[in-house]
């Protein structure tokens, strides 16, 4: 248990110092949100309609941009060797690293969502629906993304390959996340159905992610 908390605390510390603090996550999210109207055009009604999609894309990006070095950094400086050798099961260690990543990169985004909702012309209810789906769904992004991060070590590859491997996995999360938020905002579909699927996806990824990542790390040693 100490081992796990030590790992989580270390990773959060590094993320905050190197990434520049939790505020940076918020700033990043803000920038992405500001970016979208430029790309899409200044149509406020359209923006409102796309609001949840934009927020979800921002979250996806924030996780993609930072996840790819989740294990590679540890591999390059030799930490991964010691983590693999340690008495903590590798699955647990992987889960701890992913959790730390989510705490450092995911949670600030969720906290910032209400502010960004204003910019995208979403009302209070819609914003809280999006925030709720993000809270439930972003762990799934992190925990599936982790598999790609582990493969990056195994394959000695990074960057886009990783994104290509991970993106298909995160498509379902994105779909149900957006459709749950949209359901909450405009109806007519029920919020409950996509939301519970989203929860299920998160739970599945919480289990599958660490095992897949640990397996890939174990077989990719050299």
């Amino acid at each position, binding site marked *: 248990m100490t081992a796990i908390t030590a790992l989580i605390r270390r990773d959060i510390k590094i993320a905050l110092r*190197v990434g520049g603090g939790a505020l940076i996550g918020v700033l990043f999210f803000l920038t992405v949100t500001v970016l979208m109207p430029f790309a899409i055009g200044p149509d406020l009604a359209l923006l409102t309609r796309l609001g949840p999609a934009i927020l979800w894309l921002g979250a996806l990006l924030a996780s993609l941009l930072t996840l790819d070095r989740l294990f590679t950094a540890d591999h390059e400086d030799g930490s991964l060797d010691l983590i693999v050798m340690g008495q903590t099961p590798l699955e647990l260690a992987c889960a701890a690293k992913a959790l730390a990543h989510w705490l450092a990169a995911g949670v600030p985004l969720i906290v910032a969502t209400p502010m960004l909702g204003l910019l995208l012309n979403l009302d209070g209810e819609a914003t809280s629906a999006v925030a709720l789906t993000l809270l439930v769904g972003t762990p799934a992004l992190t925990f599936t993304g982790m598999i790609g991060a582990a493969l990056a070590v195994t394959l000695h590859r990074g960057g886009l390959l990783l994104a290509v491997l991970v993106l298909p996995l995160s498509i379902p999360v994105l779909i149900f996340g957006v459709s749950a938020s949209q359901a909450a905002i405009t109806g007519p579909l029920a919020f409950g159905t996509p939301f519970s699927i989203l929860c299920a996806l998160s739970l599945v990824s919480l289990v599958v992610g660490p095992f897949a990542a640990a397996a890939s790390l174990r077989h990719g040693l050299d």
Partner: protein
Amino acid sequence: MRLSGRQISCVRGGRAVFSGLDFETASGEVLAVVGPNGSGKTSLLRLVAGLLVPAGGSIGLEGGETELTLPEQSHYLGHRDALKPALSVAENLSFWRDFLGGETGDVGPCLTAVGLGHATYLPAAYLSAGQRRRLSIARLLVVRRPVWLLDEPTSALDAAGQELCVGVMRDHLASGGIIVAATHAPLGIEARELRMGGGK
């Protein structure tokens, strides 16, 4: 305790590095792995540490704790020193102590022992090559493990550092530990030699 390997062979990147290697060592002994560059010293250490999978043969530890695997009872000191530049020296060391299961407590005395007392709160990014090595050695001290796998432990160390390293190894042997060390320079300690062939 005795650590032994039987007919180990090692394949890396599709090429055979060595095969049919036997070795054996016991509590209180140093096994010095020597041989030319590329002969497979590092590979052997990583096999023992469980970081590589042998293409054949077996490696075992007799007399250790039965619930733990050999890697879980070993310290591995490689070329890459597992330090995070963004963390301070003390933070780095106490993380490894906590993660590897050492007793909680102040890491200060241990840092002083390896001559890094003055650098406790410095970011690890600021350390010189030898200082990094010293910090790696401190890691061996904060958590007790019976088997030490050391890859060129004295490289980058100055004369005082090499003495320090030898002292630490002696203490470990005296407490019944096993050391397997790959090295090019004499270790400064009596050791059984394992000579690797080939390589270049």
